[in-house]
């Protein structure tokens, strides 16, 4: 389904998602028409779903970032769905992941400062349904963030 040309295109695109098709073609060593056709093919097959702008929340005044690792009460059949539905309503929640392991759900949460975090934690997080255990990891620094895969 994928050949080396597709991989080459995606590798270049991963490194620089904002690149123009002409530049991409040049870097992948293709002529622009071929490159464009390949991109269309990747989109049609649903492999390339698009690109999302990355917002630097720190620049918008959100200086606190926390990973909340949640264990849910699994005796409640709807625990995951109820929890996720309510978590989605909190604007400061940026990510919701579910897991197989010790942790059931992780929430990526931002806050303006520690006082704001404390308010969010008390009023919005602790009131989420079916939590049996909760632990927080405070982010200090991002060391690597490119989120690329080795194609």
């Amino acid at each position: 389904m994928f050949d080396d040309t597709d991989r080459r295109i995606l590798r270049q695109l991963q490194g620089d998602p904002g690149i123009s098709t002409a530049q991409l073609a040049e870097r992948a060593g293709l002529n622009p028409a071929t490159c464009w056709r390949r991109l269309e093919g990747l989109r049609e097959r649903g492999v390339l779903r698009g690109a999302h702008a990355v917002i630097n929340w720190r620049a918008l005044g959100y200086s606190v970032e926390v990973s909340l690792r949640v264990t849910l009460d699994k005796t409640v059949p709807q625990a995951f769905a109820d929890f996720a539905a309510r978590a989605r309503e909190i604007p400061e929640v940026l990510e919701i992941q579910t897991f197989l392991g010790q942790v059931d759900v992780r929430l990526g949460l931002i806050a303006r400062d520690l006082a704001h975090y404390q308010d969010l934690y008390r009023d919005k997080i602790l009131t989420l349904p079916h939590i049996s255990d909760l632990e927080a990891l405070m982010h200090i620094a991002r060391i690597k963030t490119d989120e690329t895969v080795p194609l």
Partner: protein
Amino acid sequence: MNPDGVDLDDVDRALLRALSEDAGLSASVLGKRVGLSQPAAWRRVQRLEKAGILAGARLDLDLAALGFGVTVFLGVKLGTKGRVSLADFERAVSAIPEVQTVEHVLGLYDYRLRVTARDIADFERVLRRRIMTLPGVGNVDANVMLSEERLRGPL
């Protein structure tokens, strides 16, 4: 106004919302969405980039279709704190291609890693050969991701 002095109005917020859905939107499409001319929309986007608020783009790929079926979040505790240089660990862990993100955290673990692999067997190879052999690695806790949602945030 927020503490960093970057003032956003409703139009800026609408632009950020639109671009976080689709970073590839042209200035003319963006302008139409938020009720601005193309040059005005372009100037706004430039301003958001200059202020460091728009920080590039993230490609949305179907990783499973590309053969990366497994994503694992690892909590890593450094075993010999004080004796191992954090910089050495960070450099070595960042060089592993399967490691997508590295975050220094405060809490039960020292680092949070997002690792992608072809399957569980491949993940085990990465874990044993590359991560467990890093300088200073102590306790490691692994959680295999089942689903992920990204939300647009407080805009």
